[in-house]
């Protein structure tokens, strides 16, 4: 009986492999699989848990939003995925490859698979992002080297992946600069000669020049003017769609997230409290925190903004696990 069951699953698996293209959209390819990620930092009074069990998947070609207020752990998630922090426990997988693993799991791996353990430990200790993952940072002024011109700045990313041919680097930089909408004349200019929006474009050029499959944009526009920020968001959106790149868009501005993201995860105190397709999330918020968060957005309408009933989140609902309330809509709840 048991044997029969196993065979059946194998059959289904083969069927999916063969018919994947035809079955199409329901069976999307998982690019990034984050599983039960935990991270604690040493604080002045003991350890502070920044993440307490975060799991989600990012599909390929998807723009995935993470929202939450300051201290919710959204930036920590981004930094673990990009290799800047190592997790206390849990795992991050890119495709079939494990790219980050918690200490306990690493210890187990040391015994069971020593070669794989050595490789992974080397990767994680290097503090470098996986070659397929690149980041765009919040403050373009702080994240660019003031003493490098655009050619060096953007070319350095190619250099780091092992390209040594100067002509090839120059060509790559030129193309990346054109892709982000900057004129070729800016190659030999320095960061201080650019406006905030242009600097963020340079940061994006540096990220996309290696053709990553996943871009992590951590509050890419919160340091910019609203109108300039909108242009940068549109640029990231267009690049993602043209190149079939996945994006993790970390932000606190819900209206932006709603607009550009396919799916959105809402984080609070180191947990994902709700995860759904963005329209679904905004139409039917379910977790009390999400409800409070959405009701706090001032509507651009004088009648309703002055009358809106604002829900206050009074804590609670942070235990249990993510349960599916409707197709693809996960809510943190008991039972």
């Amino acid at each position: 009986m048991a044997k029969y069951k196993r065979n059946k699953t194998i059959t289904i698996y083969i069927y999916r492999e063969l018919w994947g293209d035809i079955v199409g959209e329901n069976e999307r390819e998982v690019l990034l699989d984050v599983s039960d990620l935990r991270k604690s930092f040493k604080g002045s009074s003991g350890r502070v848990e920044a993440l307490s069990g975060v799991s989600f998947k990012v599909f390929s070609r998807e723009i995935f939003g993470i929202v939450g207020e300051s201290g919710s752990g959204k930036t920590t998630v981004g930094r673990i995925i990009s290799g800047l922090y190592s997790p206390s426990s849990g795992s991050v997988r890119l495709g079939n490859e494990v790219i980050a693993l918690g200490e306990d799991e690493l210890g187990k791996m040391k015994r069971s698979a020593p070669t794989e353990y050595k490789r992974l430990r080397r990767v994680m200790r290097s503090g470098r992002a996986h070659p397929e993952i690149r980041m765009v940072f919040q403050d373009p002024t702080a994240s660019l080297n003031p003493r490098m011109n655009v050619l060096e700045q953007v070319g350095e990313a190619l250099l780091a992946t092992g390209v040594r041919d100067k002509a090839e680097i120059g060509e790559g930089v030129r193309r990346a600069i054109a892709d982000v909408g900057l004129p070729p004349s800016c190659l030999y200019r320095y960061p201080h000669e650019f406006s905030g929006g242009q600097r963020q474009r340079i940061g994006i050029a540096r990220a996309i020049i290696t053709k990553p499959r996943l871009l992590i944009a951590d509050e890419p526009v919160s340091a910019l003017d609203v109108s300039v920020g909108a242009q940068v968001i549109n640029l990231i959106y267009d690049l993602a769609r043209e190149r079939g790149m996945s994006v993790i868009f970390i932000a606190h501005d819900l209206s932006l997230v709603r607009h550009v993201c396919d799916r959105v995860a809402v984080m609070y105190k180191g947990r994902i409290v709700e995860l759904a397709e963005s329209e679904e999330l905004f139409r039917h918020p379910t977790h009390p925190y999400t409800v409070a968060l959405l009701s706090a957005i001032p509507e651009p309408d004088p009648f309703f903004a002055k009358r809106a009933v604002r829900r206050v989140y009074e804590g609670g609902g942070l235990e249990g696990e993510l349960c599916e309330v409707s197709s693809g809509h996960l809510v943190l709840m008991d039972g």
Partner: protein
Amino acid sequence: MSDNILEIRDLHVSFDMRHGERIYAVRGIDLEVKRGEVLALVGESGSGKSVTGKAVLGILPPSASITSGSIKYNGEELTELKCDGYNRIRGSEISMVPQDPFLSLDPIAPVGAQIAESIRKHDTGGRIGREERRRGALELMREVGIAAAEERYGDHPFRLSGGQRQRIAIAAALAPSPRLLICDEPTTALDVTIEAQILGLFERLKRQRALSMLFITHDLGVVARMADRVAVMYAGRIVEIGEVDEIFYEPRHPYTWSLLSSVPSGSGGRLRIIPGYVPDMRDPPIGDAFAPRSEWAMRIDHLAHPPFFDISPTHRVASWLYHKNAPRAEMPSELRELIAARLEERRRFLMENGSDKERCEEG
């Protein structure tokens, strides 16, 4: 006494930069804040809205100067005041809530003491004793909604969250019981849930203390919630001014149309943006400054600055489109549909809830 607590007439402010360059930040604005009302000043950064707020308070940086115009507070001309005179007005009559309280609070003084100091500074006779000041500060902290005020009194700013710091900054601004509050993007640095609380606090203070406010912001959601009247600024000038309903439901200036259309709402991938860039204020364009970015621009827009045309007794717009010889201009159809949908929603809401008076009182 006139109806207006603040009257600004034809104000020009410019900055003198190095190399003899001049930035014309404010280029002739007229506005008035009526007693007990909230006037929102909206615009992109570089439109001159913050400079206007600072000019009223007399805290422009040294490189800036008011080149002409008048600012009258309760009929008293502020631009002619010397330092002493301004100190009398500043704080006790007009006060300011800054954008980032972390920069405006003293990092090495307890927050309660900073509020108490604000009381002492404005106690001209020196009649209020130390203990009384402390009690006053605690009372203010409670008024702005700081829980356990006694415990928080001795805390330094870094121990407080962003929202609590902003509450302290508001308490310090309120200490001398001002009549007019200038709020310069007071919630931009805060999370949305905290922003909603602080805006609620402003609403309550306005009601309880009969405050008038000049509310400077770029967020149209905040404007919709707070404002009684709205002035839209672009490139150092006011392009449209009116009651909040007039601006949101019957906007007239192409720039206001663009602003309202670019509010991200719903999903749809790319954001709608206003094409082009804000003009360089070292060399402001002749004529209507928005003309280069506007699809409604006419030849005259590039030649002469439009005067104000009255749409209603409370609604004025500076655009040649409303000159009697101009062709009839319509707002973009998408915006018209959006507004129609909102009005429809509003009508349905009123039908279902009858008159909404009870709800208001509840809130």
